[in-house]
């Protein structure tokens, strides 16, 4: 927060009087010394402050004269209303969506994004500046950038509705400047002045045109775009911990929170890009705090670590594709073939207590579109995603997504060449679009997936664990504790079990962490067809697990029943009197 102390340097910055000083002193140390010597009664300025201010107020591109007037949105009220509904995190990812799309369109090299938040000082109000090198904005793409409803979609892109960027920047602040240098073209700037989206500012509110400007000074490097949002809204300042009354999270907490959020939302996108040989780096700077985004592992990798891989109820990976003709009044043919590919990963989670696992989230279906997480308002837990679905005939009914079904983990990854076909909400991609052209197909597919696991949703953790990755990370003692955690097993009993032939085999067991692959839209997806076990069989196995609680001896009986191969081999080995440290090698 700016203090009331006299600050000559801030005055110079604000008045523009700092420019000659920057011109004269190219060395930050010398400039700091000169200022502090010239204004001994003022608050001293640090070298770090000089460095930041040189970059922010002197090195930044400067707006030049108007080169062209561009028609902007005649629907300012629409932007205004929608912008007001966006939270900061969502607004920032909408801006990042455009950056990723532009990068995929241009692929100029490694993508580097810096999101810098400047707190309010005596010299200037708070500001968000995003600097990125996704290739620059091509001249012909300026219209989609400033007009509502125009979107220059790239293949498998994220930008879909032509509203995200505009809403996002105005959700953050009142004044927006965009500087960009597309290779081979004159660098340009777009300026939405403060008041442009303010109905009380009569002269600007009624002005539809947006000026395309030249850049007078410091044009951005070729392939680079700088987006500066000024006069941040109160709720934005609050969310970023920059409001006066702020007493909650520190800048460090907020930086980390944003980094985690971006790292999750773009995890699949990141891995897709890096697989193609490009690097992606996003850095968040709030004041003096810097945090680099660490992208989460791919969905499949994370699921492999957290699901349980029982051979008779293992996780599935189901790929299916649909195509329908949709009416598109804007397009010449008026009909467009909409295509959607859905990849579903599903299974039962082994554990609920790992922070990194999928399980701490409320139950439901997680959804991704072209590599970007979009179930940001929470997993989809209503009937649109197959919960509570009634199958025809004697097919039964799915359970609702409640705490008792939280063990069922379902992740749907959608891909489409035309991003409008992804079933994400419009205009903000933070939810599932229940009006998708593929609503019925998605609902039915997810309903079948839920049906596969619904009868095992309450499976006891201790009985599932040997089939999980986590099991392979445990010590023998930890394994014994997990196996008998809900029984009356004494230390001696556990030890005796560990020294039995069956016990030794079970402790050494390594699950096969492989998903069952399914493809096609119309397959019969039942436990019998997929896993070769009847629904009654599954119910009995789950019920029996529950029944063995408390009695250590019954736990052993149960384990032998679900590991029949190991149990039988152990028995055969005992019959031929193999000593404990001997193992048959065939």
């Amino acid at each position, binding site marked *: 927060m700016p203090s009331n102390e006299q600050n000559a340097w801030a005055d110079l910055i604000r008045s523009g009087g700092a420019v000659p000083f920057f011109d004269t002193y190219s060395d930050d140390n010398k400039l700091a010394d000169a200022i502090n010597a010239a204004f001994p009664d003022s608050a001293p300025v640090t070298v770090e402050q000089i460095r930041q201010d040189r970059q922010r107020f002197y090195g930044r591109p400067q707006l030049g004269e108007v080169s062209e007037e561009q028609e902007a949105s005649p629907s300012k009220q629409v932007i205004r209303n929608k912008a007001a509904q966006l939270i900061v995190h969502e607004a920032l990812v909408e801006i990042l969506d455009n950056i990723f799309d532009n990068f995929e369109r241009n692929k100029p090299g490694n993508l580097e994004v810096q999101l810098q938040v400047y707190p309010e000082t005596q010299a200037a109000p708070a500001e968000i500046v995003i600097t990125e090198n996704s290739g620059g904005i091509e001249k012909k793409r300026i219209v989609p950038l400033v007009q509502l409803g125009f979107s220059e979609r790239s293949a498998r892109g994220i930008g879909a509705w032509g509203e995200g960027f505009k809403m996002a920047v105005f959700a953050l602040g009142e004044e927006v400047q965009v500087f960009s240098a597309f290779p081979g073209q004159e660098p340009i700037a777009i300026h939405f002045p403060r008041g442009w989206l303010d109905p009380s500012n009569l002269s600007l509110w009624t002005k539809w045109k947006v000026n395309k400007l030249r850049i007078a000074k410091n044009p951005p490097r070729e392939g680079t775009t700088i987006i500066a949002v000024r006069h941040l809204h109160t709720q934005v300042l609050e969310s970023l911990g920059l409001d006066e009354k702020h007493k909650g999270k520190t800048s460090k907490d907020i930086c980390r929170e944003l980094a985690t959020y971006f790292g999750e939302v773009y995890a699949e996108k990141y891995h897709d890009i890096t697989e193609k040989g490009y690097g992606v780096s996003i850095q968040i700077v709030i004041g003096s705090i810097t945090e680099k985004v660490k992208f989460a592992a791919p969905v499949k990798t994370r699921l492999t670590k957290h699901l349980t891989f029982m051979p*008779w109820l293992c996780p599935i990976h189901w790929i299916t594709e649909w195509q329908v003709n949709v009416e598109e009044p804007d397009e010449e043919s008026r009909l467009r073939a909409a295509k959607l590919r859905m990849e579903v990963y599903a299974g039962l989670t082994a554990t609920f207590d790992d922070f990194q696992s999928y399980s701490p989230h409320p139950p439901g279906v997680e959804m991704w579109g072209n590599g970007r997480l979009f179930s940001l308002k929470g997993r989809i837990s209503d009937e649109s995603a197959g919960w509570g679905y009634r199958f025809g005939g004697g097919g039964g009914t799915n359970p609702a997504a409640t705490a008792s079904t939280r063990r069922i983990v379902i992740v749907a990854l959608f891909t489409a060449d035309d991003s409008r076909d992804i079933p994400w909400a419009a205009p903000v991609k933070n939810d599932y679009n229940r009006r998708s052209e593929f609503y019925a197909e998605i609902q039915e597919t997810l309903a079948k997936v839920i049906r596969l696991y619904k009868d095992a949703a309450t499976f006891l953790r201790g009985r599932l664990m040997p089939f999980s990755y986590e099991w392979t990370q445990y010590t023998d003692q930890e394994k014994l504790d997990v196996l008998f955690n809900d029984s009356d097993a004494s230390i001696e009993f556990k030890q005796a079990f560990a020294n039995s032939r069956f016990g030794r085999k079970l402790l050494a067991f390594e699950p096969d962490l492989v998903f069952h692959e399914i493809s096609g839209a119309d397959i019969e997806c039942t436990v019998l067809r997929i896993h070769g076990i009847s629904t009654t069989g599954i119910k009995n196995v789950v019920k029996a697990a529950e029944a063995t609680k408390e009695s250590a001896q019954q736990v052993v009986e*149960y384990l032998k*029943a679900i590991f029949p*191969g190991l*149990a039988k081999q152990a028995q055969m080995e005992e019959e*031929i009197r193999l000593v404990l440290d001997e*193992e048959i090698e065939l």
Partner: protein
Amino acid sequence: MSIEKHVTEAQLKKRLRKSGKNDEETKQWILQYTKTAHDESPDEQAIAGILQKNQEDSVLRVKGFSLTREQYYALIGHFEESGKLVADQQIDASRLVKMTVEEIANL
């Protein structure tokens, strides 16, 4: 638990023969042993057994008795023999739980 000694197929055959199995039985034993390794589906019979046992236990719990399994079977046997079908209505549960298996059987 580390496995310290590996028993090769030749050593295994030798052992099986030593235990009295002939060539064919030895072959079948190894075949069965190998096949068993791929047995991954739950043993339905064993699962059914666990459920059955649990059902009996729950019968005891529902009726408010705290009997051991042996006491329960002794009781059932007693009533079967004496031709009485409705068991718990005719016996004082609080007295029963203090009785030994023999005492119950002699009711």
